[in-house]
């Protein structure tokens, strides 16, 4: 090797149970020790020019195993003493639990963590509602500009993606539905299929999933980076309530815009379905409109859109909570952002399932 660090390579020889070292005994040459070096009863260092902490560490390890250390120069001996004094003292390790007990403990911790998460989400829900109450009592504390800004960010800017996605879903439903229904000669029912599935379930659910991906991550990132920078703490010391300044406008903006996005999604879904029915089955748009108005109850739209504010609340609360949980390092910001998206999408789907049961029970 032409490494200039190894100015003097280490040569080691073992004679009469004594390890004789010559050259530089450093971290770079530590592995040059010959086999059997660890079994010698003494180490002679009189020809070692340069000794570093790694070398001293090796010597100390051998010394405590009973080997004699000889031939250190005065400076080197002082150096070895310095390293000796600096050697870390391991703390006694906690006794390891038996495997099944460790498993039990881990499971217990996970369960408590999960319950704690649910409790915290409930807390943030409560904080949001308290902030709403406060905004009603003291309208001057409410940040209207911020609300408008977030409506634009979460609502307006999501319109193109939501519209495109719903249009495509309508197209797919019409196409797949017509293929199946044609076999029974019941093509006309494709209109019912599209209308019920889009209006009742898919329109709002897919919108909520897109918004959960888009906005929950944005909420976590924006609040989280402020948290990381201690801006949230600064806000508290300045007498600003983060609930009012950060959480209320963001969640409220979601609650306002998600039903509107859901409505847009419904319209584009129906439009896509109508277009595909026309192309594939020759059902004219006027026929589509006629059957839609005659056969499909407005209840479906109500059922669909009534879920929107609840989904919005779920997404907003999960996003804001994750943002507030960000620590001081960038890594926790990334981790919390992805957790927020996954949790928000999961929670939206669970809530949708619960809604289905609920509406089935009350017969809507």
């Amino acid at each position, binding site marked *: 090797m*032409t*490494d*200039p*660090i190894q100015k003097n390579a280490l040569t080691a020889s073992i004679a009469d149970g004594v390890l004789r070292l010559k050259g530089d005994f*450093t*971290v*770079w040459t*530590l*592995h*040059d020790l010959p086999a059997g070096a660890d079994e010698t009863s003494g180490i002679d260092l009189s020809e070692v020019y340069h000794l*570093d*902490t*790694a070398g001293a*560490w090796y010597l100390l390890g051998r010394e405590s195993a009973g080997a004699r250390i000889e031939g250190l120069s005065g400076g080197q001996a*002082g*150096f070895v003493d*310095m*390293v000796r004094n*600096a*050697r*870390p*003292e*391991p*703390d006694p390790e906690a006794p390891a639990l038996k495997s099944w007990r460790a498993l039990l403990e881990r499971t217990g911790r996970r369960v408590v963590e999960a319950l704690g998460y649910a409790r915290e989400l409930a807390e943030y829900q409560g904080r949001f509602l308290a902030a709403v109450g406060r905004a009603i009592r003291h309208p001057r504390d409410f940040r209207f500009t911020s609300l408008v800004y977030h409506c634009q960010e979460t609502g307006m800017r999501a319109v193109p993606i939501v519209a495109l996605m719903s249009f495509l879903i309508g197209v797919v439903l019409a196409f797949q539905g017509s293929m199946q229904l044609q076999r029974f000669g019941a093509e006309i029912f494709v209109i019912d299929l599209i209308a019920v599935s889009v209006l009742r379930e898919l329109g709002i659910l897919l919108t909520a999933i897109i918004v959960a991906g888009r906005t929950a991550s944005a909420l976590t990132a924006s609040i989280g980076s402020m948290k990381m920078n201690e801006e949230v703490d600064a806000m508290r010391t300045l007498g600003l309530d983060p609930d009012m300044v950060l959480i209320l406008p963001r969640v409220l903006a979601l609650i306002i815009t998600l039903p509107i996005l859901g409505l847009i999604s419904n319209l584009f879904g129906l439009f896509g379905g109508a277009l595909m029915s026309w192309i594939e089955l020759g059902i004219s748009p006027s026929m589509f409109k006629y059957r839609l108005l005659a056969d499909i109850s407005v209840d479906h739209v109500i059922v669909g859109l009534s879920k929107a504010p609840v989904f919005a609340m779920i997404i907003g609360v999960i996003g804001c909570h994750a943002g507030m949980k960000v*620590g*001081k*390092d*960038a*890594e*926790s910001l990334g981790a919390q952002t992805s957790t927020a998206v996954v949790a928000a999408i999961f929670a939206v789907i669970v809530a949708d399932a619960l809604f289905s049961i609920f509406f089935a029970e009350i017969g809507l």
Partner: protein
Amino acid sequence: MTENVIEVRGLRNQFGRHVVHDQLDLDIRRGEILGVVGGSGTGKSVLLRTIVGLNRPAAGTVRVFGQDLKTLSGFAREAIERRWGVMFQNGALFSSLSVRENVEVPLQAIPGLSPESRKALAELKVSMAGLPWLANEKYPSDLSGGMKKRAGLARALALDPEIVFLDEPTAGLDPIGADAFDHLIVELRDALNLSVFMVTHDLDTLHACCDRIAVLAEKRVLTTGTMADMLKVDHPWVHEYFHGPRARAATTTERGKE
């Protein structure tokens, strides 16, 4: 006090039209602790970054161990880089690794070093930097500012370097912590025969550890010398710096100690 480990000659640094350094000369001798002071924006950190090669100078040469850094490449440069350690202002620890793993990173460059030895050496360095055993398994986000600096120092010292660069080592530490850090640096210098390049604003640190002080002003090193020399310089900024109320407090406490 003979050999110069670092020689900076005719250095010029500029960002766009803003010239930070012009015709800057600076020497660091083997085994000394050099304190670099200067007002905010005089390019102390830029100088440090230039010497360690993070910043390309517009003109001038930086010679480390007698070799011009600009002409070196690849293996030779890496070899030089292993002979110095840098402690950044906030430790610049890798946040995904624990303190011990952070210190192990430079040790991974050594061929043939077993993982157990690497672990033990890293633990030794952590302890030498004055951190408790418990800190080994902690992550940077769990550490206080002072502990981060110590962990950064432990990583800088991992390969027993000959030169250590410290960027504001005592900034943001409480006086007791700063004092302990000063002692640590002197102790390590004495034990490991380090040369230390220290950017600092802390007058107590300058008093307590630095053998020589270099003052950056007017885009160059205005003057270098011991603390006693500094007190005699009659450049207005230098005078203000070393004779201001804070400086007087630092000198009197230092005299009281001796």
